[in-house]
């Protein structure tokens, strides 16, 4: 993970600020930085989104391909995650530097998103035991400035929201051999329901308090953090403690409460924004990135 060197004096300054609910960039402890979301940015994917959170920038693309369902779950599709830590994000990722982080991130994402509580995996099934849609979620880190998990999760949710999977239907003849047929209308496609797709909220313990959306210097001051996946309704679907330090059970409970509250509050404006963008349709002007 990208790290910064923070001097003792700086640490004290940050710690004292947080104690007084005033962070270096002027935010409160439960405030996110400015966030920008843009969907449908990569035309050759089935769904994509780009999210910038402060200086953190991630690009997520979703590609749907026909594959074979898992033997244990014959009537469900599944998701695959791949996180590419590009050396653009930070020089540390050069060579194979980003590999470990990438694997860690994709494993976490897999746990958070690939379950039937988050996404209706049954809707991805085409033919029981034979064919299903596999969604390949590719995450590209463009810039690292802390709080990768949250940014990625928001981007994934946005990308899944914008994903359009071509409609197929199965035709079978007398002999029982089945053919996949593709609708010739490119606008004829299925959309995923993202109501239950969670967002990840990372809560960092800094001194005696905890903050969300920690910047890199703040992160350096923190001993440990808890990341949790929170759905629209405030249900926590996954909790993980990261970092070397230890946490008191009480503060874990406190942090979970904070995460739940913040996460719940994150969903409503996000969905509103996505729907607004969707409504613009073709008249939407592509701005900024790859516009």
């Amino acid at each position: 993970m990208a790290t910064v060197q923070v001097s003792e004096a700086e640490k004290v300054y940050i710690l004292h600020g947080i104690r007084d609910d005033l962070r270096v960039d002027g935010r409160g402890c439960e405030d996110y930085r400015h966030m920008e979301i843009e969907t449908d940015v990569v035309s050759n994917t089935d769904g994509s989104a780009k999210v910038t959170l402060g200086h953190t920038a991630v690009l997520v693309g979703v590609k749907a391909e026909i594959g074979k369902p898992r033997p244990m779950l014959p009537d469900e599709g599944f998701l695959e995650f791949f996180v590419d830590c590009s050396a653009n994000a930070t020089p540390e990722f050069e060579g194979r530097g980003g590999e470990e982080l990438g694997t860690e991130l994709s494993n976490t994402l897999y746990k958070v998103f690939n379950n039937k509580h988050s996404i209706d995996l049954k809707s991805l099934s085409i033919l029981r035991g034979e064919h299903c849609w596999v969604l390949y979620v590719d995450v590209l880190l463009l810039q690292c400035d802390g709080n990768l998990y949250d940014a990625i999760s928001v981007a994934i949710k946005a990308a899944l929201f914008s994903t359009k999977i071509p409609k197929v239907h199965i035709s079978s003849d007398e002999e029982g051999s089945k053919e996949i047929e593709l609708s010739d209308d490119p606008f004829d496609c299925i959309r995923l329901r993202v109501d239950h797709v969670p967002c990840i909220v990372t809560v960092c313990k800094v001194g005696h308090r905890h903050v969300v959306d920690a910047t890199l210097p703040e992160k350096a001051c923190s001993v440990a953090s808890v990341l949790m996946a929170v759905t629209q309704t405030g249900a926590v679907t996954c909790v993980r403690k990261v970092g070397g330090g230890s946490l008191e059970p009480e503060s874990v409970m406190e942090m979970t409460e904070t995460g739940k509250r913040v996460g719940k509050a994150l969903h409503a404006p996000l969905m509103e924004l996505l729907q607004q963008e969707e409504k613009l349709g073709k008249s939407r002007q592509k701005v900024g990135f790859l516009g």
Partner: protein
Amino acid sequence: MLKSKTFVKKTRSGGVVKIVREHYLRDDIWCGSEVCSECKPETTELQKNAYIESNLCAYPHYLIPDTNVVLHQIDVLEDPIIRNVIILQTVLQEVRHRSAPIYKRVKDMLHEKEKHFYTFTNEHHRETFIEREPGESANDRNDRAIRVAAKWYSEHLKAFKSSSDGLEVVLLTNDQGNKQKAADIGLVVFKCEEYIKSLIANPELVDRLALTDNEKNEISKKVLFPEHLPLSKVQAGIKAGTFLQGTYRASRDNYLEGSVFVQKDGEESTEVLIQGLANLNRAVHQDVVAVQILARDKWVAPSSVVLQDEGAAKDDAGDEEDEDKALKTTFAETAKKPTARIVGIIKRSWRPFCGMLNVSQIKESTRHLFTPADRRIPRIRIETRQSSTLAGQRIMVAIDGWPKDSRYPNGHFVRSLGGAGEKETEQEVLLLEHDVPHQAFSQTVLSFLPKMPWVITPEESASSSYWAVVVDEGKREDLRQLIVCSVDPPGCTDIDDALHCRELDNGNLEVGVHIADVSHFIRPGNALDQEAANRGTTVYLCGKRIDMVPELLSSNLCSLRSNVERLAFSCIWEMNHNAEIVKTRFTKSIINSKASLTYAEAQMRIDDSTMNDDITISLRGLNKLAKILKRQRIQNGALTLSSLEVRFHIDSETHDPIDLQTKELMETNSMVEEFMLLANISVAQKIYDEFPECALLRKHPAPPPSNYDILIKAAKSKNVEIHTDSAKALADSLDVARVDNFPYFNTLLRILATRCMMQAVYFCSGMDSDFHHYGLASPIYTHFTSPIRRYSDIIVHRLLAVAIGADATYSDLMDKHKQSALCNNLNYRHKMAQYAQRASVAFHTQLFFKSRGVLNEEGFVLFVRKNAIIVLIPKFGLEGTVFFDSKDKAGPKLIYDEEGPVLTVEQHTFHIFDKVKVTISLDASNIQHQKIRMALLDPVIPGVSVPAENPEPPSKKSKIDR
């Protein structure tokens, strides 16, 4: 401006991929019109005064056809009267996608200056590009694109109203919905039929209109044929093995019967029988079809009756039961063959067919039946209002479709070839019907001909540095000083071989065969080469030659004429006086032929002992060696077969044949032939040694023993025994087969033996293991000696040139699969050329007899059939059938014995080789298939033979006056 086009596609492995293509839009695409001052085109295609006389639009206008109009009415669009047409890119792309041949025709029209056709790239024009909307099908989108482009044109041209006399664009569409929508946005739009019918000056165009589907919803008629299965089902069925795929071949003799050659994986191809109208299910000769094998108890035997679809047009219902009844003959259980029915058509191979119109009996009727010249093609119903003009003409008709409630396919008139029976017309017909490419060479092909400075006058060439360079390279030997001469039939302009013979210092003889170096001029892969490869062979018709290579090469640069310097490929042997080869070498060379002789001239020189010039001495040497070679060859078992070839003496003014005689063979003929065979064999060995995988060779398979049955039986009837165990045995027994007082017997036997043979074919050595040439009794053979008129020889030249290091190789030459495909084409072209040649001879024979009226001639019985004898007239090399039964009256009593074979008519018994006297006349009752009719004069059989004296030749009466 950049747009991207996105679409999803199914991959072959079953996956689904999304594909995004960049699509650039421009604002500098010009409209192509002369009136426009806004666009600044380099050239304008569309004229300012685009008048076509039409009572629908009196103003000048440009036409914009939609895709279906182009696809279905291409024949109309090709008419010279239709000009100033805008072909939209959308249309062009769709046409390309749906029909490659039509796409090519459209492209050809676009290139033609006089047609004023213009492609408007509307898909890349900023103002006419449209994106597909949600819920819109691809077709709807294309229709909309066409409307948008048409609208753009009409507004664009409106801006120049002052200078354009009210120029408009007219959209042609047959789609009702599209037409309505176009009218709604203010476009001038017509249905194609409406528009064509409105053309005042050209009523004949209406005939060319293809019938479209939406016209036939008249009254629902009785369905005659089962529905064809959709392609997806057919393919699934083939995969599952319930259906078989194959090419349908209609029977020549019986229109209710046909066969399909099916090829199953890893099995030999088998032939299945199809019988009856419903089972044939609208398949037309050469279509690729899917068949379903019937249950074993429904299998039938091929019927031996000759059935022709004649008479008036049948009503679409009711009659087929009678028709099928004719098929129900009794047959032995063993004769049954696998029988199938056609369930679907995989690929139609409809082409325009030549033939004639059967004018409907009902006056004023516009629907007529068309009878194709090829009997395997069903009759076609066409609509025309010019039936009176077209009657008696050869016309071309294209099939548009064959609805399941119609007895005949529907078609439309394409063009007229001219009056039936006229020489030009008939020649065109037989070239078209035999698929002989006979158009003039295209500009691209001609562009690969050597440029004129290449032709160097003899004075210059002696000192020309060009020659020096070539010779110095060591690739080409200078053989100009050799006494080379050519011997050919009279009037030959494409001389591809020349010979020389001289004594060497060591007492041996040096013999050279010099073949025109065509491969020097035709380089691999260029348009000239491709054209030659496609044509495959030069086709010789009576009085006409259809060249394989342009005339500049065939009659000039490659023709080894006397006293000019020519490039040659030489095969030079050193032989002793017993014609044993001591040494063989091949080289590219320059020669200067000293004389171009005819066979007769050469013969005269050899025979005239007073002549002792170099050429004559050379010829005598050649002749001596050739005799030895021939003897050796015959000892090895080469066959001398016989077939009567006829020559016409053509009137130089009218080009009508005035006399015909069988070709005479002289010693010199066989002299040239011997050396050509020797060269071919030597070259074959060389290229095979050098390239065992990809040598182009020629083989002549031994015929299966059963082929000889007829020959053995026939000989036995004269107490002569024929051995057919080997070529040698056959040759020997043919040599001794003589019957006293019957000198012609031997020739007849040889003619019969020829009929027993198989076809010789080209093949690629890497694809076959049997190289034997049965007729020549040579283990290996190829064609090397006529590169001007055969493409196979060009390939052999190239192989040989590579083998001796005189030329570079190229990949296709070494690819045995490509080579094999080429061989298939060459074999096909050769076969077709032969058929065309025969048809041409037959036609000229008819012309000859037409002018001669009735003739009485002597002939021999060549075959005996169930109801006829086949008679050969040696004088004319003509074969004809004398029928003993006729359609309308009761025939004489016929007893046929297959063992003889003999046929007893009343009291008289006919054997093979019987001498008979017949009267020959031209039967012009069927103008499409005129034929020579023979009737028996002697022996006299009451009720069968005709009186010797014919008061008036019947052919005169029915001759068409023109």
